[in-house]
């Protein structure tokens, strides 16, 4: 959904974009054995999934600092569980969204930021203006998705999450079913039922 978004124009004066200027570096690295291929692999996943994770939290929070904190928490958790990931069974998107879901669940249970402000690690560093603007952009982009989430609010948690994971996070129904711990058939039934209800109630997406 947000693999390659347009960005705020704060960096227009930079000489190059780190995401688009990797050709020369790649050619340099072809001639040598990287000391940590897993680091390179994790960066590939990070770069590809950052937008999906930021969007996931931007649908839930309207404070850029909180979106930043939860996004950072997600990738810290991801880096620590990267060795356990099985890419043959789980796509990068499904894996990172799964981590994000667990981070958000922990946040909802107990948010240490509320009682210990300023004591967190990388995530707690204050955002500068450009970073705030960048995260506000994600939050703005997700405005219509938040409207959909609001419409889903009266429905069951499983129905809400099924729609979000498939229609917003772009997981396959099979991936969403695994994430939610239900059969693929059951998930498809829930999806169809929830989408139909949204259509009946009119307006917007789904």
């Amino acid at each position, binding site marked *: 959904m947000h693999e390659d978004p347009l960005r705020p124009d704060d960096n227009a004066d930079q000489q190059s974009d*780190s995401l688009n200027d990797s050709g020369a570096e790649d050619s340099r690295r072809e001639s040598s054995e990287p*000391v940590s291929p897993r680091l390179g692999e994790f960066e590939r996943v990070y770069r590809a999934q950052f937008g999906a994770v930021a969007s996931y939290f931007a649908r839930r929070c309207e404070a850029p600092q909180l979106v930043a904190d939860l996004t*950072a928490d997600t*990738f810290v958790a991801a880096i620590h569980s990267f060795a356990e990931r099985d890419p043959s069974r789980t796509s990068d998107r499904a894996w990172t969204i799964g981590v994000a879901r667990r981070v958000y669940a922990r946040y909802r249970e107990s948010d240490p930021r509320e009682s210990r402000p300023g004591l967190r690690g990388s995530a707690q560093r204050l955002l500068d203006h450009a970073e705030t603007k960048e995260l506000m952009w994600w939050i703005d982009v997700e405005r219509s998705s938040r409207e959909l989430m609001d419409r889903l609010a009266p429905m069951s948690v499983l129905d809400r999450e099924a729609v979000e994971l498939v229609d917003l996070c772009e997981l396959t129904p099979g991936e969403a079913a695994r994430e939610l711990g239900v059969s693929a058939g059951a998930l498809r039934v829930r999806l169809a039922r929830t989408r139909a209800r949204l259509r009946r109630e009119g307006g917007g997406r789904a």
Partner: protein
Amino acid sequence: MPRFEDRLWSELVERHGAVLAEQPVLARAAPRRVRRGPLAAAALALALGLAALVIALGRGGGTSAYAVVSNPDGTITVTIAELAGVQPANERLEELGVPARIPPTRSDCPTTRADLHPAHLTPEQSRESFEAVGGNGRYSIRIDPQAIPPGDTLLLRAYEEPSGPIAMRALVIEGPAPACLAPDHGQTGPGGG
């Protein structure tokens, strides 16, 4: 001004990159009947202007204490296999005119990492300045002197990990290298280096 995505990536690598470090089984360069040391752990950390690279080497592998090799493409490969190799490697870098130094790590040194001023490099610039290379049981840092901004210095620190291997950290700093460095917490320096 860096984007949040880039800053977060830099901080992830700096603070948690070691988690992703692989633990290669090191083959000895010259097989001898010597004790094989602990397997090495390598960690690479790159930050926005603050890049840390950890390379671990097996000890007692029948290798020389250090190697500073000029490559045909203009890059320099530095290998520290034993702490005794720090000083001669440092001198060799100076002879070659490479803007990289390995100041000795001493517990009585007044200069700590907090006193260093990391150069303002993008992660890409950091990666171009140096990279970890490995193979045949040797893990080294390859430096591209041309990629280090004029006036900046690639600071290499070699120290002994508590578990035994020799590790190195790399950081591009503003200005010249300090005469010495105090060890980070948990690091064992080479004495007089």
